[in-house]
């Protein structure tokens, strides 16, 4: 492809400041879609990533839900993995060192059944080299106890964040669920309780059925929808959260291209996480970064910070340019 003449010149600065956290670029991978990093090392230079958010970790290992655990739907998929994970001990001993040795900033997604479990997990991860932040998962739709209830009630959300805040000095990101009426309220509660940042969204509660067997397609009946199908919901949620709070927000949901990622940044998200798209193109994040850099060059912007949050909220009719000057018509 011929290089656009506007696209030459110095490389734009992709680094972003997220509260206390500085990242080399705004593109991370979302929890649960990138394993513990190693799984993707054959396809991607992991050091290119802004950060790796690892699969949700609990104190004790969890086996997860019975299968079938996933199903594809139009432009998306529904999963009911049930937070299967190796537990914090195995994570620290045999998963984290791989990423730490490669100098990849690691964000640990944490999950507990009780406030005490959240607090204990946060304490165990505090001060561990290689971990740059914790992402508090208060929004998983796939577990019976805890999980969802923490994320749908502002008071409960605040108590979880408060418990974690007291147990660690690490920067905290609270991951919000879209499965609420007013996401802004939960956002405010989390920030009020000490969350440095917010990320949104987790998966959207969903269901699929089979007309032949006349049964649900997931053993768990419900699951979480992700992939391109959820992007418009994620954009709306991100917008609402940005209206409600004044802290860095990380956009997640259906991001598969540089355009998708730039849409979240335009709203004011300071970073993004790429989830389901990793399954389809394991090196998709590298492509997103390349596209983002090209876009900034074409736009003659020196840094991504200049672009973040530049949305003009006035919407114009798409053919407005042509309509201009036609006032003399009846």
């Amino acid at each position, binding site marked *: 492809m011929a290089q656009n003449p506007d696209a030459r010149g110095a490389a734009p600065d992709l680094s972003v400041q997220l509260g206390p956290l500085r990242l080399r670029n705004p593109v991370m991978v979302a929890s*649960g*879609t*990138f*394993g513990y990093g190693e*799984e*993707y090392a*054959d*396809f991607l230079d992991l050091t290119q990533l802004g950060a790796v958010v690892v*699969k949700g970790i609990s104190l004790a290992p969890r*086996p*997860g839900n*019975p*299968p*079938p*655990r*996933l*199903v*594809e739907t*139009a*432009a*998306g*998929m529904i*999963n009911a*993995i049930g937070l*299967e994970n190796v537990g914090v001990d195995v994570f620290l001993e045999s998963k984290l060192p791989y990423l730490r040795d490669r100098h990849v900033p690691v964000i640990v997604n944490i999950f507990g059944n009780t406030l005490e479990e959240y607090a204990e997990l946060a304490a165990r991860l505090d001060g561990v080299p290689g971990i740059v932040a914790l992402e508090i998962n208060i929004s998983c739709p796939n577990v019976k106890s805890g999980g969802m209830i923490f994320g749908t009630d502002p008071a409960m959300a605040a108590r979880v964040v408060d418990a974690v805040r007291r147990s660690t000095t690490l920067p905290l990101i609270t991951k919000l669920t879209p499965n609420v009426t007013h996401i802004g309220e939960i956002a405010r509660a989390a920030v009020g309780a000490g969350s440095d940042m917010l990320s949104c969204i987790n998966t959207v509660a969903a269901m699929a059925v089979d007309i*032949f*067997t006349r*049964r649900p397609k997931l*053993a768990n009946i419900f699951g979480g929808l992700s*992939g*391109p199908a959820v992007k418009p919901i994620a954009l709306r949620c991100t917008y609402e959260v940005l209206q409600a709070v004044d802290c860095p927000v990380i956009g997640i949901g259906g991001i598969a291209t540089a355009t998708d990622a730039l849409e979240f940044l335009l709203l004011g998200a300071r970073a993004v996480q790429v989830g*389901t798209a*990793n*399954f*389809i193109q*394991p*090196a998709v994040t590298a492509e997103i970064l390349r596209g983002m850099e090209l876009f900034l060059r074409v736009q003659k912007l020196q840094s991504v910070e200049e672009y973040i949050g530049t949305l003009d909220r006035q919407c114009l009719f798409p053919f407005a340019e042509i309509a201009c000057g036609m006032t003399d018509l009846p």
Partner: protein
Amino acid sequence: MSKFLEEALILEQREVAQQTYRLRLRAGRMAEAACAGQFFMLQVREGMDPLLRRPFSFHRIHPGEGNIEVLYRVVGRGTWWLSRCAPQTRLNLLGPLGNGFQLPRNAGSPVAIVAGGIGIAPLCELIHRLLASRGTLEARDIHLFYGARSAGELLPESDLEDLGISVYRGTDDGSLGYDGFVTDLFRKTAEEKHIKPSVLYACGPLAMQYHVARWALEHRVPSQLSLESLMACGIGACLGCALPASAPAGSTADHYVHVCKDGPIFGAESIQWHKIQTHGAPPPIFLYS
């Protein structure tokens, strides 16, 4: 073993049985690296529908020619799209994935192979590898039990009989060969002909694999069953492809294996069969809408 992405080119696509196609792909690196029983994730189409890649076995691997063959059945959107792809179409492959079949250590003794429907796909490459490395084993001591729902779904006779192996065919509706399930055909024939395999290989629907597993455990014959699950990533990242497994050290707690990275080949003893709920027959008709 490292895995990679490869852009493959369709050389030929042919309908070889009812709703069943054989695809020949130019994929030099994949052909060089893959073993019998492994699989790859295929992006059937760029775009958002179908979104996820689909897992397919290596039906034949031709490292010398830089080709692989895929045998697949049209069951839904992804495989339907695939069946519309003409020669020269490019398809993106991610592989080779999974553990693959182990060839028997005891090269001289007979082996039994049970194939249900499209489950024949990976077993063809296995049969060729067995033939190539069989030591003192006669071709006819490779016993293939091959069943499908109906005659039209079976691969044509010459494809397998020409190899000189012992082939026993059956159909669920009795339209060809043994009238009934392939597992019954296998059980009956093994008894009547005193076939005592040193290894039992199988691929097919889970309900069939359950009966094969029971036979293997009853007769204490080591088995290698190629199992299926729904997959999103194929590389152990999403944890979607779980099957209930026998828990370590006899514990009764829930324990799962992941078909993409622990399998797809498992011994009968490693799966907790009674915890798998299958609904038996696939959809009676295929609706594309």
